[in-house]
């Protein structure tokens, strides 16, 4: 079975800034990996590269064995992204936003399914309200509902818990657990060590665009992980 995600010597620069330098990763299907490191380490850039939102300056990216450069569309059909911005159209209702996504991705967007997804995130009653009127937590929950509908094989999350209330955060963790059970691979960036330990079974530590450490993690390793992160932060100062 092909690796869920494989990066071979991937680099990406913006002008003269090398956001990502020679990164190689091999991520097994069904695993959950945390991408950690100080600000400016290149985590978000790496995530965007995996999502085909950016193209690498060098190197190859493969999702489920598909070359992202060759067949971006096929890669995008297998992934979903949950980021800072909800990517929801403020003037449309939650239902309409979700229906749009299903149509865009060519997946089953029947009214029942959409309603079901909204129900699961607790937004059934506000399904007909424009997203503009939602709080950030509600918007993120709507985005979660969207991921539920997409049922991706690879889920990319960019500091998803930022600004979420406890209820929404719980929902997010539930979603991740549920998807993992179905075999989805998870890759998330986070600053929160506890979150990464709770959700993920391996971690990749980055700084200045390069990988400093990667390996599997368990709750017992908390202080160890913390120390590593601190060391990296010191190193680049």
């Amino acid at each position, binding site marked *: 079975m092909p690796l869920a995600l494989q990066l071979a010597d991937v680099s990406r*620069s*913006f*002008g*003269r*800034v*090398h956001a990502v330098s020679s990164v190689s990763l091999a991520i097994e299907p069904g695993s959950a990996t945390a991408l950690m490191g100080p600000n400016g380490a290149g985590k978000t850039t790496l995530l965007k590269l995996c999502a085909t939102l950016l193209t690498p300056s060098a190197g190859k990216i493969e999702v489920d064995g598909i070359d992202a450069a060759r067949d971006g569309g096929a890669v995008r059909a297998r992934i979903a992204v949950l980021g800072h911005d909800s990517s929801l159209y403020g003037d449309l209702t939650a239902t309409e936003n979700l229906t749009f996504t299903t149509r865009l991705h060519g997946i089953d967007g029947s009214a029942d399914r959409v309603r079901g997804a909204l129900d699961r995130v607790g937004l059934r009653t506000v399904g007909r309200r424009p997203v503009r009127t939602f709080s950030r937590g509600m918007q993120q929950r709507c985005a979660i509902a969207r991921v539920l509908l997409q049922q991706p094989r690879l889920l990319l999350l960019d500091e998803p818990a930022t600004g979420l209330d406890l209820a929404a955060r719980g929902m997010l963790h539930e979603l991740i657990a549920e998807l993992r059970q179905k075999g989805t691979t998870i890759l998330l960036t986070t600053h929160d060590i506890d979150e990464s330990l709770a959700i993920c079974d391996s971690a990749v530590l980055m700084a*200045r665009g390069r990988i400093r450490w990667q390996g599997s993690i368990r709750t017992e390793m908390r202080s160890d992980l913390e120390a590593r992160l601190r060391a990296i932060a010191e*190193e*680049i100062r």
Partner: protein
Amino acid sequence: MSREGTQSDNIAAAAVAISMLVALYFVLIAVPNDAYQGPVQRIFYIHLSMWLPTFAAFGIVGVSSMLFLWRRDRRWDHLATSSAELGLLFCTLGLATGCIWAKPIWGTWWTWDPRLTLTLVLWMIYAAYLLLRSLATNPDQGAVLAAILGVSGVVDLYLVNRAVYWWRGIHPAVVVNKGGGSGLQDPMMRITLGLCMLAFFLLFSWLLRLRVRTARIEDDIDRLRHEVLSAV
């Protein structure tokens, strides 16, 4: 820089200098006054000589933009930028000399002669190209965006040409036809024109070469600087 490189540079520079001097001599001294237009007509030779560099530059911008988008080799981008800058320069000079010539001869600064109009549109595209590069939020992306403009410009050029000519075709010519570069009876005048065009084209090529080299060096310096600063 190798010694051979410097030597070929010197030869090129010398060739340009000599041809310019010869051309200027002809334009200013050797060629007789035009019977009707008087001494002002001399600027005409320079004016016409601006055409070839302007359009050659535009073609270069178009082709190198296309190649840059396709191959992403920065050298094509250097060529495109340099060509655009010089193209703008020669285009401006062409328009300016044209106006200077037109005023005493035709009595107007500007006419909507198809060639002039085409050149003006070209000028705007050049200017937009350079402005786009400088205003882009990300310089690398700016090069790509400008390349899109470059490609669009060159494929559009034929259409602009047709449109502008048809436009003026319907209306009666406001002024006597400029003579399209011919209408110069005296062989001496034709020689002068030829020399002038050659001289300015050599000048353009030489400047282009220098400018491309400068762009490449700037790029290298930039890259080195960042490599040094970000070495951890």
